Each structure stands twice: as structure tokens, then as C-alpha cells.
């Protein structure tokens, strides 16, 4: 177990390093000279360009730049945003919590709704309610998140605020602030749930259907268990196991959803920050959000793997 843990954490660290290196490749190597991009459309002299290059460290050979970059990344230094003229990490720190709040709430709700509907659908497969819920899930899965967000916003009119996280004139006490944030969060949260729960529903449903052919369910029935006990004690727990991994594997989807939903609803989180960075384009900022978002998903996957080990005795032993 300890060795496995060490192996997993080691593997994750290598992946993280790979993400950081990919960030360098994407934002330093492919775009070419960042100084040209920064000064595009402005009259600058050759001396000014050279000075800017020296300040950014891009006059050195690529290998040396990479080493500097790695060293800085380890210290948590991802450079300074062109647009905000502030350290990238500081900006990310400010925007982290709104995203965690939004994605956390909607993921938990989506998982609960998706799994519950998935179990129901599989157990009564072919029934009207199963066909309707599966069909609806497929349709929602086909919807671009941002479009659904815009439609919801259009349909609800003035019922909910269409953007931001709080009104400026809300009283500063905790209760009013929380209610205000919750009010702002309704639409973005609904949008994300609507698109994400469909995945979980389909995965849980097919996983349970697969499990329902298992011989040990016949054993359970032969023992005299009632049908709902067969389902509750044997089929569902076993079908849940593969679903756990898939829930985490689909976290990338949640991140994608966060980017577009935050853009549509101007929710001041990492997604909106990414959007602001790509419209600039503010490459250091985009690099920062890229590394943080990718790193977060990788870390969550390590947790998923460890969780799976705890839950499934078959993997635990090997």
C-alpha cells in the first residue's frame, strides 16, 4: 500500500513536471519572440526591445530559459501578467475560491442526481421513465454548456442576476453576503449541473447494466433476498466502483464547463481569468491558469485512484 502510494505520488509529480514543461513549450517555444507580441502596434526602438528581452530573460538560449523557468515554477513564480501587471500567482489565488465554490457545488449535485437517475434507469431498463431520462441526458450531453447558460439567462429574465458574484451594495454581514452569492450562483450552477450530470447518469446506468448479468446476483436471489436488497447490497455497490474512477476522469469536463460558464455569467473565477488571458492574449497569465487547471485535475485523479484502492478490495490486495 505504502509502495503503491509512493508510486502514485511519484507518477503524479512526473505528470505535473510534464505539465509545467508543456507550458513552456506552448507559451515560450511555439509563439516565438514574446517581445514582438507584447509591443505589437507600438513604436519601439531597438534598444527598448533589447532591454525588454533582457528583463524577461528571453535573450538567453532556450535551454537556459527552460532551467530558469523551471526554477521559478518550483518557487511558484509564473511571471507577471501583461494586462494586470501583477504576479500571475496572486491573480490565480484571488480567483481560485469562486471556481472551487461553483464547480464543487455543481459537481456534488450532478453526481448525486446522475447516479440516482442512472441506478433507477438501469433497474427499470426499457421503461418509460428510463427512456425519457436517458433521452434527456443524451440531449443535454449534446448541448454546448455556454449555449444552455445563455438560454437559461434569456428565459429567466430578471429573476436572477445575469453576471458577477455579488452586488456592490449588499450589506457586509455574512448572511446577506452568502445569500447574495447564492443568488448569483443559481444560474451558473444549474447550467453546469445540467450538462455534467448526463455523463454520470449514462456511466452509472451502463455500469449497473453490466453488473446485472453477474452470476453472484443469481446467488443472492437464490439465498432468498428481496429484489431491492439484491440491488442495494450487491449490484449497486459493485457498479459504483468503476463509476468512481469515471467521475474523476471526467473532471476535465467540469473544468471545461467552468471556463465557458464563468465566461457567460462573468463569474470571477479561474475560468473567466482564462478567458481574459486568451483574449489578450496575456501569455504568462494563460500559462499560469493552464498549469494550475491541469495540475488540479491530475492531483484529483491521484486522489481518485487512492480512493478506489480503499473502496475496492480486489485492487487493494494486488
Amino acid at each position: 500500500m505504502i509502495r503503491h502510494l509512493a508510486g502514485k505520488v511519484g507518477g503524479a509529480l512526473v505528470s505535473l513536471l510534464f505539465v509545467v514543461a508543456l507550458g513552456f513549450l506552448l507559451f515560450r517555444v511555439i509563439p516565438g519572440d514574446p517581445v514582438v507580441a507584447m509591443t505589437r502596434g507600438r513604436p519601439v526602438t531597438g534598444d527598448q526591445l533589447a532591454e525588454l528581452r533582457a528583463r524577461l530573460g528571453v535573450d538567453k538560449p532556450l535551454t537556459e530559459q527552460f532551467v530558469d523557468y523551471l526554477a521559478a515554477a518550483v518557487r511558484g513564480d509564473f511571471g507577471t501578467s501583461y494586462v494586470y501587471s501583477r504576479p500571475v500567482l496572486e491573480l490565480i489565488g484571488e480567483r481560485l475560491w469562486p471556481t472551487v465554490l461553483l464547480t464543487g457545488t455543481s459537481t456534488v449535485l450532478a453526481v448525486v442526481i446522475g447516479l440516482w437517475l442512472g441506478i433507477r434507469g438501469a433497474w427499470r431498463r426499457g421503461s418509460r421513465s428510463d427512456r425519457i431520462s436517458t433521452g434527456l441526458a443524451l440531449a443535454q450531453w449534446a448541448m454546448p454548456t455556454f449555449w444552455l447558460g445563455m438560454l437559461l439567462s434569456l428565459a429567466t429574465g430578471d429573476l436572477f442576476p445575469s453576471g458577477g458574484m455579488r452586488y456592490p451594495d449588499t450589506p457586509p454581514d455574512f448572511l446577506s453576503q452568502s445569500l447574495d452569492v447564492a443568488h448569483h450562483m443559481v444560474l451558473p450552477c444549474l447550467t453546469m449541473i445540467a450538462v455534467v450530470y448526463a455523463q454520470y447518469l449514462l456511466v452509472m446506468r451502463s455500469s449497473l447494466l453490466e453488473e446485472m448479468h453477474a452470476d453472484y446476483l443469481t446467488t443472492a436471489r437464490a439465498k432468498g433476498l428481496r429484489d431491492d436488497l439484491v440491488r442495494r447490497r450487491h449490484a449497486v455497490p459493485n457498479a459504483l466502483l468503476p463509476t468512481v474512477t469515471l467521475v474523476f476522469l471526467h473532471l476535465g469536463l467540469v473544468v471545461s464547463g467552468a471556463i465557458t460558464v464563468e465566461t457567460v455569467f462573468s463569474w470571477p473565477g479561474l475560468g473567466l481569468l482564462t478567458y481574459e488571458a486568451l483574449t489578450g492574449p496575456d501569455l504568462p497569465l494563460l500559462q499560469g491558469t493552464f498549469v494550475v487547471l491541469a495540475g488540479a485535475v491530475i492531483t484529483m485523479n491521484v486522489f481518485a485512484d487512492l480512493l478506489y484502492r480503499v473502496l475496492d478490495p480486489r485492487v487493494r490486495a494486488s
Partner: protein
Amino acid sequence: MTAIAWQRRRAAAGATWREFASQRGGLVGLVGLAVITLLALLAPWVTDASGLDVTRVTARPWEPPSSTYWLGTDHNGRSVLLLTWWGTRISLVVGLAATVLSVLIGTVVGIAAAHFGGWVSAVLMRFTDFFLVLPSLVLAIALSTVLPRGLGTIVLAIGVTAWPATARLVRAQTLAVEARPFIERARALGGGHGHVIGRHVLPAVLPLVFVNTTLTVASAIVAESTLSFLGLGDPTRVSWGSLLHAANMHGAVSQRAWWFLVPPGLGVVCVVLAFTLCGRALETVLNPRLKGER
């Protein structure tokens, strides 16, 4: 002998088709796809492309649907119906091209990772797993930000981020096929890598790849619309995503201009749903274990 082989293949294809046609969802999807593809192909002949040019518009901006403009006009006064119609072309082309790229990479990596074993497989698997957990949209955004805007970029950005799922699927299937004793028999008969892959692995993996392709097209089209919505599409061309981008930028929501919002999004939903329905129906035909359960 080839005559017999062909006859059998035709019979098999016929049986597959009959089974596919017996599923209502798949048939609906297929008909939908045929209609949409036909519309996309016919656009240059049936419609007047000059209506897409902002400098030659005659209508007022934000006009609600009327008998002249069935779906109203956008912020520039162009017909939303015309824009959506032409948007079909780019969305389909990008979706298909990106899928071909991604499925190609995924299949090659998947088969190689399963067939050769040893360190080749270990490296390829590690590589695949890394890209599998990496949020693909974030990577696609990064790629299309740093590369020059254009159709090629967006195809590349989606293609090189969508392959890991295919690779994993193909790898699993290849491993399953190679564990079957007939591979051992082929080796004992003296068959090499080329023979085993060409005669046994590929024919067994391809149906699955085909199903996966239909499902990948669906997600590639969503990805295209997302990237275009974020303003990363080809600025010179109209796609569903870029229409929604424009709608968002110019405040279609606050204008209550539902006619500009609904059609492009509905286009995405229809195409994606059609591909998904086809893919699931095919999956059911080719994977007998799923029969009667969807």
C-alpha cells in the same frame, strides 16, 4: 475464393444494416445526418452567399423574425437563417477533420501500445494516460491561442487533444484480441507482426474504431463551437460557435434576441445528437452484450 469472401462480407454488411435499421434512435440519427449534410452541401447553390458580407446588408440590425427574415437578423443586419445555414459547413468540416486526425493518432498509438509490449508499450501508455487526464479544452485553448488563427489551427487543436480516449479503447480491444488463442495459433503458423496486426487485430478493432469515430465527431463539434465561442475560431469564416460568440459579445441576451441565440445552438445539438444516436446504435449492433438494453 475471393468471390466467396466478398459474398460473405456483403451478407454480413446486410445483416449489420438490418440490425441497425431496427433501432429507431439510430435511424433517426442517420436521417438527420443525411438531411444536414445535404443542406450543407447545397448551401452555395440554393442560397446567396453575398448575404454573409457585412458591407452589403440591407436589413436593420436585431430585426425579429419576419416573413423576409424567417429567423430575424444579427447585430449587423445579416439574416440569421443564412448565417446558421452556412455555419453548418464549417462546423461539419472542422468536426470531421479533427475526428479523422484524432482517431488516426488514437488507433496507431493504441495498437502499438498493446501489440509491441515492453518499454514501447509502457512509454506510450504513460503518455496516453497523461493526456487522458489533462483537461482537453484547456490544452486546446492554449494551442489555438499561441498558433495563428485559422481552420487548420482549430482542427489541430481539437485533433491532438481528443485522441487519448480512442487510444485507450483501441488498446483495450487490441489486448483483448491478442489474448485470444487464434493469435497464438497465427504466431505458431509463423506469422509476424504485420500478419498478426493486418489479418487479425485490425479487422477486429476497426468496427469499434468506427463507432468511436461517430461519437468523437459529436464531441469534436462541441469542442469547435466552444473554441469559436471563446473567440479562438477562424475570424474570416462563419461557424455556429462564432455566431454564438458574436451573440454573446454584442449582448444578444440583454437585447432579448432569442432568434440569434437559438438557431446556431440548436444546430449543434441536432448534429451532435444525430452522431451520438448513430454511434450508440452502431455500438449496440457491434457489441451484442448491449443488445436490448438501450
